[in-house]
Each structure stands twice: as C-alpha cells, then as structure tokens.
C-alpha cells in the first residue's frame, strides 16, 4: 500500500518568509510524528499527534514553529519568519499506535528538504 508522503520534496525560501510542509500518513495510522534532520543537530523530535488527544509539542524549537492535524489524517508543519538555521530535512512518520501496543514501528516519509536563503 501507499507509504507516508510529504510535499513539497524541496523548498527554497527567503529568510523571513513563512513556509508550510505537508504530510500524508499511512491510511489508518493514528499516530503522526514530525522530526527534523540537520547537520548540526542530527535527528530531533518536533511534535507528536495521537488521535484526538492534545499533541506533544515538547520538541518544537521556538514559537515560530506550529503544526496541526486536520481530521486525524493530514498534517501541516508551519514555520513562520524562517531563519537560516531552520534549513534542514523535515521528516514525517506515522504508526498504528493502537492503545496498549508498545514499541510501534514508525514509518517515515521521504522528507522535505528546506533551504532558507
């Protein structure tokens, strides 16, 4: 079946502009994660959505970053007033995360490569 998809695959923007990154999780997966992969920081957790529960936003680096998940499916990560240090690959992952099932496998999308000039 279809895997996790992300769009755009590449995004070049100017410092100070806002960007939106989209993630389509695997159908039926209730858990959705955003991670950031950068040269300096490696792979970092950003935010987690599970069903209708309040998201875990503990990894968001600043208040310029926000994310939403509409209808329990598609998610959008928004970065406002982009800075050069926001340049990175943004990865989305989804998992079944059924209640009581530990260690669910996360399935990753190909990522969006963001370059802030």
């Amino acid at each position: 079946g279809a895997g996790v998809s992300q769009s755009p695959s590449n995004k070049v923007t100017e410092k100070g502009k806002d960007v939106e990154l989209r993630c389509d999780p695997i159908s039926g997966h209730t858990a959705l994660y955003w991670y950031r992969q950068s040269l300096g920081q490696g792979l970092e957790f950003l935010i987690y959505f599970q069903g209708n529960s309040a998201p875990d936003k503990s990894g968001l680096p600043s208040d310029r970053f926000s994310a939403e998940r509409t209808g329990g499916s598609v998610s959008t990560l928004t970065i406002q007033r982009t800075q050069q240090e926001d340049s990175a690959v943004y990865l989305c992952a989804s998992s079944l995360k059924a209640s009581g099932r530990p260690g669910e496998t996360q399935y990753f999308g190909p990522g969006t490569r963001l370059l802030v000039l």
Partner: protein
Amino acid sequence: AQSVTQLDSQVPVFEEAPVELRCNYSSSVSVYLFWYVQYPNQGLQLLLKYLSGSTLVKGINGFEAEFNKSQTSFHLRKPSVHISDTAEYFCAVSVRSGNTGKLIFGQGTTLQVKP
C-alpha cells in the same frame, strides 16, 4: 532523560567483510531500542527493534543486533556486507512507559562498503 551515542561516525569496510556498528544508550527508565537505515535522499526504514524477550534480534537484509542491558548497548552486526548496504544507520530509543513513543536518535553512522 535519554541519550544515544553511536561510537563511530563513519565505518569503511570491504564488500563481503563483517561489520559491527556500535550503539550505547543512557536512560533512567526502561526503553525500547531500534535501528533504522537511511539510503541517500530517502526516509528512514526500520531494520530491527528490541521490545522484550530474546536479546538477539534479527532484522531485514541479514542484519542482527544484540541487546546488552548491563553494558547499555545495542550493537548492529552483519556477517557479510554488500555494496548496497552503503547508507547511514541510526540507533534510537523510546521510553517504554511514555505516551508518545517519540524516538531519540543517535548521531548516525555512515557505512561505506568498498568493492
């Protein structure tokens, strides 16, 4: 807090030779352990994971890893590598008792398989 250390940033190896990629973790609570692989310009793919039971875990593409609780290690091994194994490998943990299952990753090890 949890942390993961991958002891080698790059590992060069000749084709058909064995390889070990080292991973140590630090955590005050029980964790699950994972190895993911990332091929160029692709997302991460799960190789294997340790949840419980046998400490020797077998994964895809002939890889295996051994959980050693006393040494807090989860090293990845393959007895004979192929050119196609050239990729970046990430060790990760997630907290057993947490609600999120978020992964905490090591810095990655680049495996370079030479002909």
